Every structure is written in C-alpha cells, then in structure tokens.
C-alpha cells in the first residue's frame, strides 16, 4: 500500500474518526471456491469528511461500504463506526445507505417512501407534526416540492434518486454510505446531483463515504480519493483533493482540478496494471 505523503499538507478537518477500517479482510465463499474480495485495508474516515472510493470493478469498493453498514461481516480485521461495532451503529441508526438503484417501494407515494424510516424507527421526541415538517423540508431540499403524491414509477431516474436521498436524510444519520448512487444517471443529471449533494453535505454536516466509477465525480466531490486495486481489493493510494469548498462549476474548469483528475487517473492506471 502506498499512501501519498502529501496527506500531511491537508489534514482532515475533523478531529474524530467516523469510520475506521483496520487490517480488514473479506472472503466470499468457502474452501477452494473462496474469493478474497478485500485484503489488508487500513482506512480512517474523519467526521464530516467526504471520501470517495474508486477502482476497477471487482475491487471491493462496495464490499467496504457494506462492511461499514453491517450488511456483511469481515473475515478478518476490524471495522469501527463511530467507535462502535457496525452492528451497534446500524441498530443506533448512525448511517443512511444509498444504493445504486433508488430502491423505492412502488406501492408508496413519494411522501410515504421518505416517511418509511420514521415508521420503522422510534425516534424520541419525533411528533407527527415534526415528522411532517421534516419530510416537507427534505423534499424541498432535494427539489421535489409538489411531487409528494406521485408514485416512484411516475418519476425520472434522477428524481427517484433524490427521493432515496431524502429518505436517507430524514432520520438525520451522521454518516451517509453511498454505493454509486448516480451511476445509472445521465451525465447532465449526474452533474446536477453532484452539486446538490455537496450543498446537502455542507448543510447537514454528515460524513460521506462515496463509491464511484467516475474519476471527475470523485475529484469534484471529495476531500480525499481512495484508489483501490482489484482482486483482492487493496488501497493503492489516497489522494487528497485540495480544491476549495464550496465547489462549483468554476472549480471544474480550474487547472488544479484537471491536475487532480490526471493524478487519480494515473493512480488508477497503476492499480489496473498491478491487477494484470
């Protein structure tokens, strides 16, 4: 594992660690058929940090995300979320998970989809009125005012993913785990969603761990980009993105942005070469 030494120039603004992977290893299957998906991963994500995982397909990016979410368990090493076991963090509703597919329930309206987590969780002090205000506020925030009574299949892909985002934010988790959330969207919608995500991130002070296939997306969004190798997934390098926030379309036109995109692309090239 090689970590770029420039990490010291831009220390994470956070003081505490939100997610810590230590010597994490994950095997799928047993015996001879076992495949090593992730091996020897050490990674710490600070509170309020925005970190992207990027790498060739099959590099275990999603596996890391699912380990943090306690949707799967590590074969070795340890994962800590807010200093707790992922299971405890899951039961404490510390994170919101956003899938590549919006995963909305067709039989529910947009409003009821966003309300779903609140129906399942018993959040102290959450009155009916507060619930309504919160859902209304979030639908406004993701730009879906007036679509409360629509069904998911009546919306475009981008709008569906916004509903999924509002649903993840409604119980105010301090961490967002996002598994290629905009991967299925067209580039124009994706650009807009990226900027909206940045705005939401700065408004809600959440920690975001973001899996993506897109280099420009990773550079535009993140404070750090983690480049991974494939089979087994290991951390190839961690590239700090020293672009100023708030990031707008102007940032995307700056020279530094292009330099960083190139840097990530080269690191990714090395990761792929190691694979072959």
């Amino acid at each position, binding site marked *: 594992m090689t970590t770029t030494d420039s990490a010291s120039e831009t220390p994470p603004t956070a003081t505490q660690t939100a997610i810590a992977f230590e010597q994490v290893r994950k095997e799928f299957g047993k015996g001879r058929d076992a495949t090593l998906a992730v091996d020897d991963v050490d990674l710490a994500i600070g509170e309020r940090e925005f970190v992207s995982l990027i790498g060739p397909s099959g590099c275990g990016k999603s596996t890391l995300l699912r380990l943090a979410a306690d949707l799967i368990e590590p074969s070795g090493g340890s994962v800590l979320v807010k200093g707790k076991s992922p299971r405890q963090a899951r039961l404490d509703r510390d994170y919101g998970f956003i899938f590549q597919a919006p*995963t909305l329930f067709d039989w529910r309206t947009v409003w009821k989809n966003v309300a779903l987590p609140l*129906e399942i*969780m018993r959040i102290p002090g959450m009155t009916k009125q507060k619930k309504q205000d919160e859902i209304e506020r979030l639908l406004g925030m993701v730009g879906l005012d007036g679509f409360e009574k629509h069904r998911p299949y009546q919306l475009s892909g981008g709008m569906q993913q916004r509903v999924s985002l509002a649903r993840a934010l409604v119980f105010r988790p301090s961490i967002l785990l996002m598994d290629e959330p905009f991967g299925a969207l067209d580039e124009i919608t994706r650009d807009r969603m990226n900027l909206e995500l940045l705005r939401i991130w700065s408004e809600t002070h959440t920690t975001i761990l973001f899996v993506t296939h897109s280099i420009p997306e990773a550079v535009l969004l993140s404070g750090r980009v983690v480049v991974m190798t494939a089979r087994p997934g290991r951390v190839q390098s961690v590239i700090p993105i020293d672009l100023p926030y708030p990031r707008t379309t102007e940032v995307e036109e700056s020279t530094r942005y292009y330099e960083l995109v190139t840097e990530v692309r080269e690191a990714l090239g090395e990761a792929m070469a190691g694979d072959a």
Partner: protein
Amino acid sequence: MSARVTSQASPSLGGPGRLAVLLRSERLRSWSARIGLILILIALFLGGWEFLKWVTDSPRTTLPHFHEVFDYLFDIDSQGNTQWLAIGRQLEVTFIEAVTGLAVATVAGFAAGTLMALSRWTGRGIMPFVIGAQTVPIVAIAPALVIWLGTGWETKALIAGFLAFFPIAVATARGIGDISQDSLDLMASYGASPTRVFFKLRVPGALPYIFTGLEVAAAFSVIGAIVAELPVGSQEGIGVKILTSQQYFSLEPESLFASIGGACLLGGAMVSMVRIVQLIVLRGHRGETIS
C-alpha cells in the same frame, strides 16, 4: 428540473390537468374496445353454435338452438318459478360454497406460502403436502369426504377450498420470497425487525403475485364446489342441477345447457370479484393505475 413531468401534469394535483383528461379519454377508448371485443366474441360463439348444429344436422335432443335455451329460462317449473330463478337459486348455493372455500384457502394458502418462502425447514415439511393437495384426484375422494363429513354445504366448501389452496400457496411463496436484496438491505439498515420487514416490505411486495394466484383460485373454487355436489346425496347446488338435467336430457335438453351456462357465469363472477378487490387493494401499485 423536471420539465418532462411538469409539462404534462400540474404537480399540485388540484383540478384535472391535461394529463388527467388524456388518461380519461384513453381509459374510455380501452373500455369501448373491450366491450367491442366482447360483443365480437359473443357473436362468434353464437355463430359457431348454430353452424355446428347446421353442419352436424343435430336434432333438438342433441343440440337445441341457442334461442331455445334462452326461451327455456323463462319457462315455469313445477314449483311455479321461472327456470332462470330456479337456476339462480342453485347458483347461490354453489356460490356460497365456493366463496367460503376460497376464503379458507386464502388464509391457509397465505400461511403455507409464507412458511414455504421464509422457513427453510418448515417449508420443506409443508411442500409435500402442498404438492399432495394438488395431485390427489379430488373427484375420487369427494364421495369419501361426503360420507365422512355429510352432505352439508360445509363439505363442499372444504373441497372447493382444497382446490383453491394450491395456486394461492404457490403465488404467496413466490411473492414473499421474491424481494430484491437491496430492499432487504435497506430495511436492515434501518434496524427493522423481521416483523416490520414482513409487513412493510414482503406483504405489500407480494400482493400482486398473491392476487394472480387468487384469480386462478377463484375459478378453481367454483370447479371444486360443483364437483363436490356431484356425488349422490346432494340436494342443492348447480352441480346437482347439471346432474339432473343430464338425466332428463332427452326430454328437456335446454336445461343442461342453461345450467352449464349458469356455472360458467358463476366462475366468471368469482374471478371478476377477485379482480375488483385487486383493483381496490392494489390501487397505486405499478400497472394497476393507468399512468
């Protein structure tokens, strides 16, 4: 941001937008097309009936004219009632048997299907019985059941339910089990209990499957009820009417055809009933609204 949608329907959902008007006219068109199709099918059926009679040169005692069957409905029987009323009374008996059977089968089939989908071991234990329920020749065991349980309507309801059970159980098992991993992971990420996952995700997700099974089961329940009425000893029901009509066929052939027609209508009515419930329950499910 959403020009595609906003240009078509006002998001305020207030008065009827242009989209709503369009939908209504489309719905109208589909309805008139459907009625047109039904009329064509009826014409073909009647044409086929009379053509068959003409080609085979059948006498009334083999195949009466359709209008003779129709006229028969308005004849007066020995009790002084019109025949259609007499047939209607028998249909009512069969209907109650079939509906009761369907209701019992719905509860039992849902429970069995759920177990098959969710519990590996219990599911495996149940499977042979579910398959068995389908392979048992119901016509063969119906007389035995009548001997054990009597000739009351409950016995017939039980046999109707027996036939209706299988499609419901299989459809439920399929629907309850066929939930996307993402949806299950989503519920897990909320720390949802298995009960919550069941009622908030699995059951609503399975409803379209279950209703497909119910439609088949509704038709089966009528068949089951009629078959159950055939063994000697039954006094009421359209099955009995069909049997006696068959015995007096050479005297009054119209009676058999009228009874058979009634049985077909009953089956159709049962299926339509399930469809109407489906439209109400699945309001808003994809494909259930014109959108």
